């Protein structure tokens, strides 16, 4: 072999040598990456980190509330804990996790090689990450009330005028404001990116009508982010103007309006619930058909219901404000709009049950989580209907009943769906299966813990216990319920531990997965596991909603029926 030939010959590097690259290079590669899969995983890892932090904050609060007149933490610390818990879970845990799923899966499921704007994608992630860092830097940098540490203590919806300088001296509230402002920019960028990718990058043959439901749900989710995060951003800027430039938007001592902040916050805050829950529905909509061995029941109705939820969710925000003394007409309007959203949500539940109906249901871990999800969605939806009746809300708004209700939605539906999603797509991401036995331990421990905590949490609310109190009086009938609620946390933490251990253990020791371990039907399962950087060597062409079904059943393809 001549010298010239050896130069022209492509260099090959053995996998072992590729792995042996210096740590610095590997870290550098992740930091500068614009690859949607790496960014998706980074979003996910970042979200899980904050899930654990926010979870530990909740655990400390539950220790404090296990018995009346407990002295585990001071009132100042408790108020900081619930503020940080709420803010962390919504903005820096669940949102990054759902963006992580969207980032990883959207290009793979539409047969594209990356997102539409890879650099904007990286920018969005790093802005979100910066937001979380700014928020938690308040613990060091914020000069809080009474010198008891510096985390903000205004509650996650930060009602004016608590955020005014008169009531929040120091800088902890500023860290809260700027943290959310910055991560909000990241969210808006990512939402734009997801929408553009879904609308413009689909592979040949994939009409809107042939997209897997996950894409429809993420499309609507991204649309909601765009519409809903913007008012929050505006309100945060107005708050900064109040605090530093002498503005009086929310400064009631100078004639500002506390109510305007409530409207600004909840016109973001309620669509936000759907921003978080639609991606959970997306996961359920992929897992349930595969493990029932049937296509999704009523695809068009599901799409219509998704659009209806997206639309109606923009007109329900003031059901958070039933107690602020709105007129009976305004109250009645928001009763109607809020109850109306139950209809498309119900359609979704019925269609998932319809998908299982007549199938051959396989009770693997992802499906177990989805089934629990459906039952809990049903209950969370029904307590939601109860709370939509304004007079019922006059009693139970801001009580532990409401706390139980929205945790049923956020933990019982969204977190359960996230668990289902991780068990389902882990083999695609790592090339290895997660351990089924440990997965079942995770499922049952977490299920028991969840129900101990959040079922029983409804009762002290009915018995008159308001939320956000660092302690309570004995003799009001609240003690036993609070103790049970706190005990449930132990099971939940044990479940989460199983999940983390399972993820790490399976990464090294899990069974090799192959391309398509679940015998599934969407495009991501046609790529190798893990997918190469370019996803598809050849851009696929699809003829139906289940391209891999068509491939596996040439005698009975979907495209004949759609």
């Amino acid at each position: 072999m001549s010298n010239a030939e050896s130069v022209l010959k492509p260099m090959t590097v053995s996998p072992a040598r590729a792995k042996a690259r210096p740590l610095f290079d590997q870290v550098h590669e992740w930091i500068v990456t614009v690859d949607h899969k790496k960014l998706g995983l980074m979003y996910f890892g970042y979200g899980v980190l904050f899930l654990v932090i926010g979870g530990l904050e909740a655990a400390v609060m539950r220790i404090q509330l296990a018995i009346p007149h407990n002295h585990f933490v001071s009132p100042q610390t408790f108020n900081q804990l619930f503020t940080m818990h709420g803010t962390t879970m919504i903005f820096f845990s669940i949102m990054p996790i759902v963006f992580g799923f969207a980032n990883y899966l959207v290009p793979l499921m539409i047969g594209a090689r990356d997102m539409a704007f890879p650099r904007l994608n990286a920018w969005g992630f790093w802005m979100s990450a910066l937001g979380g860092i700014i928020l938690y830097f308040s613990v060091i940098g914020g000069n809080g009330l009474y010198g008891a540490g510096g985390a903000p203590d205004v509650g996650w919806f930060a009602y004016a005028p608590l955020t005014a300088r008169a009531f929040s001296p120091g800088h902890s509230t500023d860290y809260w404001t700027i943290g959310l402002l910055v991560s909000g920019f990241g969210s808006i960028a990512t939402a734009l990116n997801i929408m553009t990718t879904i609308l413009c990058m689909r592979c040949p043959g994939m009409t809107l009508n042939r997209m897997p439901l996950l894409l429809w749900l993420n499309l609507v989710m991204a649309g909601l982010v765009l519409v809903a995060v913007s008012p929050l951003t505006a309100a945060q800027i107005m708050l900064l103007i109040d605090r530093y430039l002498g503005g009086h938007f929310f400064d009631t001592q100078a004639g500002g309006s506390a109510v305007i902040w409530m409207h600004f916050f909840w016109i973001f805050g309620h669509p936000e619930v759907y921003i978080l829950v639609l991606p959970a529905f997306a996961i359920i909509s992929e897992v349930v058909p595969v493990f029932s061995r049937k296509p999704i029941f009523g695809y068009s109705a599901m799409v219509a219901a998704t659009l209806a939820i997206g639309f109606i969710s923009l007109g329900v925000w003031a059901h958070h404000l039933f107690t602020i003394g709105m007129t009976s007409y305004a109250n009645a309007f928001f009763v109607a709009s809020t109850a109306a959203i139950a209809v498309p949500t119900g359609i979704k539940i019925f269609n998932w049950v319809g998908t299982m109906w007549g199938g051959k249901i396989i009770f693997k871990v992802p499906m177990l989580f989805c089934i629990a999800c459906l039952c809990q969605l049903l209950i969370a939806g029904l307590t939601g209907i109860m709370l939509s009746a304004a007079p019922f809300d006059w009693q139970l708004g801001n009580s532990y009943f409401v706390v139980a209700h929205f945790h049923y939605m956020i933990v019982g539906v969204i977190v359960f769906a996230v668990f289902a999603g991780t068990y389902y797509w882990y083999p695609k991401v790592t090339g290895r299966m997660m351990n089924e036995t440990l997965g079942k331990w995770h499922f049952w421990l977490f299920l028991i813990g969840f129900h101990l905590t959040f079922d029983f949490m409804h009762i002290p609310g009915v018995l008159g216990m308001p939320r956000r109190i660092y302690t309570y009086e004995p003799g009001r009938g609240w003690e036993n319920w609070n103790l049970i609620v706190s005990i449930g946390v132990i099971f939940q933490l044990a479940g989460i531990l199983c999940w983390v251990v399972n993820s790490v253990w399976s990464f090294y020791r899990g069974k090799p997965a192959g391309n398509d371990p679940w015998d599934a039907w969407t495009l991501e399962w046609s790529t190798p596991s893990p997918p190469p950087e370019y996803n598809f060597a050849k851009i696929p062409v699809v003829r139906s909603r289940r391209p891999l079904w068509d491939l596996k059943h040439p005698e009975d393809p979907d495209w004949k029926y759609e």
Partner: protein
Amino acid sequence: MLPWSRARVLISRPIRTLGDKVVGLNFRTGLVRGLVAILPMAMARVALAANGVDPATPSIFSPASTPADSIYHLSLFVLAICLTIFLVVFGLMVYALAKFRRRPGDDGREPAQIYGSNQVELAWTVIPVLIVVVLFLATARVIHAVEDARFPPGTTEITAIGHQFWWEFQYPQQGFVSANELHVPVSDPRNPNPTHITLLSADTDHSFWVPKLAGKTDLIPNRTNSMWIDPHETGVYLGQCAQYCGTQHAKMLLRVIVESREDFDRWAAGQQRPVQNVDAAARGRAVFEATACVNCHTVAGTSATGKFGPDLTHLMSRETIAAGAALNNRENLRLWVKDPDSIKPGSLMPAMQLDEKDLDAVTDYLQSLR
């Protein structure tokens, strides 16, 4: 606006009116009735079994005033509907999971691939829409009855002002101010004598919530809200601030003391009386007036005219101090003056650094404020 007499009819029989006449839903059918009975009964049973029979529990399911009662009946109706939906849908899920599970020895063939059915979709769209309409109508009636009620002459007027972290109660008709414990006259349902409460805030948002008497309404700065109660039985009703208002939100407790007309009038007369100077407390009064106490507290007829803290003119007529955080006795009073943080850490009352002798004297003085 409803005339009061009509509002009363609506309010006192909300569900029957709603169920039989307005909405046209037969409330007496066995199923619904049974369901209505089961859930609250089960909940009440569990609550009682776990906690003993405790009338102090501020449960929304033991209403003692018309607004709370209307809400109670509406919530039973809503609960019944929701429980029915739950049983039907949950039953379908469990049936599907049991019937359509892949059994051992499965032939490995895929089941029939069904894509959907327009008739079925239509059914499970239309039925929920009808349920939502029924719920909306039932809810709107109660909203209207509670929010748009008119008040008969002789209604007691009170202004409640939320402060960090205590309640100020002004009685404009009688011309005095009290704090933290709201005294109202009992109302005979046949000849109602409701209490109308105007809600204001001096600083941050608060919320007035006494579950047995009415739903909560927020006290918001720069905004005038109102609510009303007409308690049917005398007694003490517990509640507390239900909108996060700062560090000591948890100990912004609230007691409503419902008294017979005579007892209420006697109490009001006592509140109108000027403060009695007691010689034994003269030294304490001197200390009190020479200290910053007077910047925040009012004792009518003295140089103490502060508005930032509760009016102390008739302090000893209250059962509790520090917005319900401690019983009103000598030991607690002295501790409260000496070191407020030991009772309510983060409350806005500062420790005045009095020496032991002055503390005793001020406590004597406070205990003379009857």
